[in-house]
């Protein structure tokens, strides 16, 4: 069905709304990538098999965010939350909850510290402390249906925008204080205004000028961040609607979504959503009778981290190597095919729909003075409740990790929060009470970045973590500029040397000097921020570097070159370690204490991970040189 004007859209929405009974029992099952990995598709199939439409509607939704507990099932309208649901649990849910309105207690959420069972989704601390503006619809709609989106108020902001002028929309955006959610935090409204001015100038020069471009940066390459994926999988229309508003405001005629090839489900849902919007006449020519023409195309990335950088991303859309170029000119003046291009992150586009819907003043009330609105963090690593959390700017890290995240599991101690991916930094315990906003994190040496928040416990070696990130950046460096290409390699070599127990006096100073050089000399943000993980770990965990270099101690017992393994007397002689040892370094007889030959042992740790009796002790303080590595060197 094609919608030709505003009133038809409202009529259609009213019709859908009337058909939607808010009290109809509905079983919503999370269909995000996380829950799918746990088998939520089979749970959906079981639910469809066991339920008739009269009893309850079954809906596979986007990601609910609480990935730790998947597959997630929420029974509406009561909002009963069931965790780790398997297909075999469905008959019980049907019998107890749907037919008799009672709670299946064994599937309810159990509070990790109090042990209390919590039946309702809204009461679970993980959800109760969030402010969900962008993710709020994820658990309530089927991402493959435009009708469900429209029924929940979808494309209302778009219709509102089409009735305004571009300047009015941009004014609203500037008033809201929205800053780029990709991490750099540039004010979105200002970017739009720059592009609009340029497009108007070009139109004056050439009345036939078709308009500039808008583009969506969905190349979420930061390891540890997956909120963009979740938003596109769970609510693709919201992202598209945001781009439509932006295109209308600045006068763009074409949009591109640049998305990672690693996200097949998001690509699929987005492509479906675009087809549906086109079919309804929300994309195409003369949209809603306003004379505005606009369409969006999907472009796939091919596994290059640097393509998250804006100029590299635009080069990649143009079909070239994804190499950044110097700015200015900024893409808002000269972007895709040298035309004015507004490039925003997925969350920024989606946020603009909320700002138009609720008004700039309402939005500006959320957050801190300089950082407005909400931010989605992916809370992952060694934390009890892993998943996606959306919180107002200005929340403290402590609230995020210990309040919403439920603290560190298995009685371990918190060590650092790695925030902002390879461009970010590690924040230690003493700064956990700092409110999170763009400025405060920068002053701590980290960045908001895309919102990846990886929690590290005492088992994480900070030198090794710095080495890990440097290895990542080194592999992903595009090679265009020397400071990044060679500087990161030298940094990596220094870190590898320290991790192997070969560190020398003066290496820390070398790291610092080189980091400064890479930061100042690199062409794009990837190189400029590459030393951040090294600099923050040096700033807060310098002692660990010193221990590695001077004492040959890796306190977290991660760096192989500083470890040795031995078997202690809790060994029952079960032979499991000996069978699993790839180096055949373990000898021993059944029921007798085993022994590890230190000359054969490769420090792989398989024995410790298979031993059921905690009989493998790991010592540190001595340097071990891998004889194989020498042989090949």
């Amino acid at each position, binding site marked *: 069905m094609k919608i030709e004007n505003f009133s038809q859209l409202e009529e259609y929405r009213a019709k859908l709304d009337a058909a939607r009974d808010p009290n109809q029992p509905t079983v919503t099952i999370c269909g995000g990538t996380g829950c799918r990995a746990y088998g939520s598709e089979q749970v959906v199939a079981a639910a469809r098999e066991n339920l008739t439409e009269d009893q309850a509607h079954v809906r596979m939704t986007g990601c609910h965010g609480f990935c730790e507990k998947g597959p997630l099932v929420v029974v509406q309208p009561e909002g009963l939350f069931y965790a780790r649901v398997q297909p075999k649990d469905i008959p019980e849910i049907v019998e107890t909850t749907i037919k008799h309105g009672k709670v299946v207690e064994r599937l309810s959420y159990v509070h990790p510290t109090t042990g209390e069972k919590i039946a309702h989704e809204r009461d679970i601390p993980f959800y109760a402390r969030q402010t969900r503006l962008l993710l709020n619809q994820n658990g309530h709609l089927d991402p493959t249906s435009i009708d469900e989106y429209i029924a929940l108020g979808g494309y209302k902001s778009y219709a509102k925008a089409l009735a305004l002028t571009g300047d009015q929309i941009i004014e609203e955006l500037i008033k809201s204080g929205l800053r780029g959610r990709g991490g750099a935090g540039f004010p979105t409204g200002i970017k739009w205004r720059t592009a609009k001015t340029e497009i108007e100038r070009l139109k004056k020069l050439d009345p036939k000028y078709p308009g500039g471009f808008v583009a969506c940066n969905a190349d979420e390459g930061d390891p540890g961040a997956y909120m963009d994926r979740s938003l596109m999988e769970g609510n693709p229309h919201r992202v598209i609607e945001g781009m439509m508003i932006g295109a209308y405001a600045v006068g763009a005629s074409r949009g591109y979504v640049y998305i990672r090839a690693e996200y097949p489900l998001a690509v699929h849902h987005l492509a479906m959503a675009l087809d549906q919007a086109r079919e309804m006449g929300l994309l195409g020519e003369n949209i809603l009778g306003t004379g505005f023409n606009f369409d969006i195309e999907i472009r796939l990335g*091919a*596994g290059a981290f640097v393509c998250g950088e804006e100029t590299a991303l635009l080069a990649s859309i143009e079909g070239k*190597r994804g190499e950044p170029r110097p700015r200015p000119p900024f893409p808002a003046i000269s972007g895709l095919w040298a035309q004015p291009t507004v490039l925003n992150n997925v969350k920024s586009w989606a946020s603009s729909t909320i700002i138009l819907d609720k008004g700039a003043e309402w939005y500006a009330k959320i957050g801190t003075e300089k950082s407005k609105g909400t931010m989605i963090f992916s809370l992952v690593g060694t934390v009890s409740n892993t998943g996606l959390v959306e919180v107002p700017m200005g929340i403290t890290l402590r609230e995020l990790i210990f309040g919403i995240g439920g603290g560190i599991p298995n009685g371990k101690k918190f060590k650092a929060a790695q925030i902002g991916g390879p461009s970010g930094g590690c924040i230690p315990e003493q700064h956990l009470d700092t409110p999170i906003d763009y400025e405060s994190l920068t002053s701590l040496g980290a960045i908001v970045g895309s919102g990846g928040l*990886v929690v590290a416990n005492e088992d994480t070696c900070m030198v090794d973590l710095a080495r890990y990130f440097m290895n990542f950046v080194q592999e992903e460096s595009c090679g265009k500029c020397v400071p990044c290409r060679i500087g990161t390699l030298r940094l990596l070599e220094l870190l590898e040397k320290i991790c192997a127990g070969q560190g020398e006096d003066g290496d820390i100073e070398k790291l610092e000097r080189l980091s400064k050089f890479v930061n100042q000399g690199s062409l794009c943000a990837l190189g400029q921020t590459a030393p951040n993980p090294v600099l923050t770990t040096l700033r807060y965990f310098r002692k660990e570097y010193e221990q590695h270099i001077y004492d040959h101690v890796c306190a977290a017992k991660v760096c192989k070159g500083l470890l040795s393994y031995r078997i202690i007397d809790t060994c029952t002689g079960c032979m499991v370690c000996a069978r699993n040892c790839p180096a055949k370094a373990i000898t021993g007889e059944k029921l007798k204490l085993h022994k590890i030959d230190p000359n054969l042992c490769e420090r792989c740790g398989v024995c410790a991970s298979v031993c059921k009796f905690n009989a493998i002790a790991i010592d540190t303080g001595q340097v071990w040189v891998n004889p194989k590595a020498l042989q090949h060197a």
Partner: protein
Amino acid sequence: MRSKDLRSIPMAPALIPADEDPVAIAEQRARIDQVIVDCQKRKGSTMLILNQLQSELGHISRPMQNYIADKLGVPLKDVYGVVTFYSFFTMKPRGKHVVRVCMGTACHVRGAAKILDRLVEKLEVKPGETSPDRQVTLETVNCVGACALGPVVVADNAYSGQMNVAKADRLLKSLNLGQDAGKK
């Protein structure tokens, strides 16, 4: 991936002779032509074509690059440069099964390196390479965006979360891969 010495495993030999290249096989060449025709009119078509062919044919060989460059009327460096830049494009065919180990930060702090070591040891293939019998390709990826499930292994596009050494062994067994493959 340097946590274990991998150099003792021999490099995979060149995998296919010239007459088995997609360009030499009429059927596959027709498909390449079709993809080029479909994408050619769109702006920035090189990436579109390469993405499509990589996922359909599993690799973009040197003869294919020559062929595409000729058809598009661009210098070979514009195709070769793009193929070598992006890690998703490969010049050698992948194996029948593709096992990808996520090395993202969240997986890293939960011990992804140990999982990778185990797979390397069991499959006797280095990361980024294909076994000589072309049964399996082992790859590392920087993040598959399933961070809450870490460590994650994606085998033939199916995600397995919260991996450990035993689960990794079971996964290989279910694909009938690794040292014990074929042994009943």
